[in-house]
């Protein structure tokens, strides 16, 4: 370690660490995503009284790799009258925007690694982490909208239009539902927000934290808008298969389709991580102070709970109608999110005054 610091300086070591961390995080997240797809198929099958894919490997454990191989070897088809450049650009935007936010989430406390020393388990820690996440998420809509437009197909266009309208609408309540947490924490740094939720044996999570307002309302609004942001059931109108064939990715095949597919699941994963970090205490939990490595398991456990919730909802709920979706977003979720902001601010005002 000292040898490396002498050669390239402290800044260089930090940069190198972040570079390695980012690549490692991408690999880990993509593996988790692959197994989320498998879990989704198995759990859905369980809910529907089927078996699901269980042939490749023990209990279907190698199914994601079989799927990947299939995606790679399928023929790439580009529609004749597609706008070529944008048609290629769209899946790239989608997957880039999905992967970029994962670097800011703290997935464990500061631990003592052999040879390296004290390491905080977060890849990049900076002042505006939450805004960064929101900004990148809001750019992600271009992937879907442009895919729908460039395919030159009416189903794709309808899907793209629906997706952009839906994502703009629900982004507002999503952003507002987080304001309560930001007001209570007084920072946008995700690592600091998680650290503040320690105490009570690591159970002083923002969702039940008594200084200010417990963010239960904000949590519910966030959960619903996050499902809508990721275009999952019951908000999967952009790809409603009974109406639009497959929505915005109707004309995409092989790896380009796989990129959209991966982007959707990575988005699921990131919004689950954000919910965990902001509302459920991130890596905080009982005995984390004694055994810091437990933090990673708490974090992953909470995230997996959310992923399971997504799959569960998909097996349970029917799809919204589009006007219901818009009415619900603008006339119910947005006012509730505003109410949460006002209530939290009022509580904070009185508490800070005393």
């Amino acid at each position: 370690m000292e040898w490396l610091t002498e050669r390239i300086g402290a800044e260089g070591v930090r940069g190198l660490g972040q570079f390695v961390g980012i690549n490692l995080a991408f690999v880990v997240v993509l593996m988790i995503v692959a197994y989320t797809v498998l879990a989704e198929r198995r759990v859905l099958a369980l809910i529907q009284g089927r078996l699901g894919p269980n042939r490749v490997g023990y209990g279907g454990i190698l199914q994601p790799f079989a799927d990947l191989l299939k995606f790679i070897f399928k023929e790439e088809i580009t529609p004749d009258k597609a706008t070529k450049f944008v048609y290629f650009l769209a899946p790239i935007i989608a997957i880039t925007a999905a992967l970029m936010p994962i670097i800011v989430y703290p997935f464990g406390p500061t631990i003592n690694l052999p040879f390296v020393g004290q390491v905080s388990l977060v890849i990049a820690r900076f002042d505006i982490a939450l805004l960064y996440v929101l900004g990148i998420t809001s750019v992600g809509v271009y992937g879907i909208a442009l895919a729908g437009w460039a395919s030159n197909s009416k189903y794709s266009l309808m899907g793209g239009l629906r997706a952009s309208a839906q994502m703009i609408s629900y982004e507002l309540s999503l952003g507002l539902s987080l304001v309560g947490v930001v007001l209570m924490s007084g920072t946008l740094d995700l690592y600091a927000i998680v650290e503040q939720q320690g105490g009570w044996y690591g159970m002083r999570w923002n969702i039940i934290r008594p200084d200010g307002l417990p963010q239960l309302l904000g949590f519910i609004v966030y959960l619903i808008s996050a499902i809508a942001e990721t275009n999952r059931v019951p908000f999967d109108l952009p790809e409603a298969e009974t109406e639009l064939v497959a929505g915005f990715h109707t004309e995409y095949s092989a790896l380009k389709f796989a990129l959209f597919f991966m982007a959707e699941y990575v988005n699921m994963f990131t919004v689950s991580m954000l919910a965990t970090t902001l509302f459920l205490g991130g890596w905080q939990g009982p005995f984390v102070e004694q055994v810091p490595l437990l933090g990673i398991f708490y974090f992953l456990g909470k995230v997996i709970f959310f992923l399971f919730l997504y799959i569960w909802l998909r097996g349970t709920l029917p799809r919204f109608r589009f006007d219901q979706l818009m009415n619900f977003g603008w006339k119910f979720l947005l006012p509730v999110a505003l109410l949460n902001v006002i209530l939290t601010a009022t509580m904070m005002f009185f508490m800070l005054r005393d």
Partner: protein
Amino acid sequence: MPWTILFFIIFGGMAVGCALSMVAQRNPLYSAVSLIGVFVALACLYLTLAAPFIAAVQIIVYAGAIMVLVVFVIMLLNAEEEARRPYRLKFLIPVAVGLATVLIAEAAFMLTVGGAARPDPVPPKVAEVGLTASVGTGLFTEYLLPFEVTSVLILMALVGAITLARRTQVIGVAEEDLAVAGGAAPSLEAASSGDRIITPGDTEATGQAMAREQIARGEAAAPARHGEEEKEGE
């Protein structure tokens, strides 16, 4: 320091290139995508200037909200490629070239000749200027009045937009139709004969609002039938 310069060259070049492409493209959607590129490049430049908050706001507001609406409208209207037309105001071309020359000469003068007299650009308290806390404190203490005035301005724009949209959709249609000589305009006929007129962009709510408007304006046959229909429909 060399890293900063490298990033400046990359993102500055990206901003200029995207801006040129935005002006030069004939397909409106390509122009919009280029403009998004400009905004992203500008945000990266803000980051190198140690103003992360401004960078994030740039992405969220411009790239994430305004341009999404622009792209949405372009997709919705299915805007075609613009046909190349002969320039109408030809004298503007030499004027533009002349002004550009003056601008570039001015910049070159400032950078070379005026360099000696130029004070060193020492940014005060670099670590604090662009951070969220300092921006927030500034906005809500020192610059509270301009901030509030700006919000009132935006509110006015909002109210204005809603007023304009409402007038064209509901009242405007009815007024135009009533102004037609002979009274019975086609759309009103259709409405009173029970068919619902559906135009692009209409939702069920606007249709019902239109029906109510017609009832309020005293359509003779409409009220009872519409009332019943709405009940049945529910």
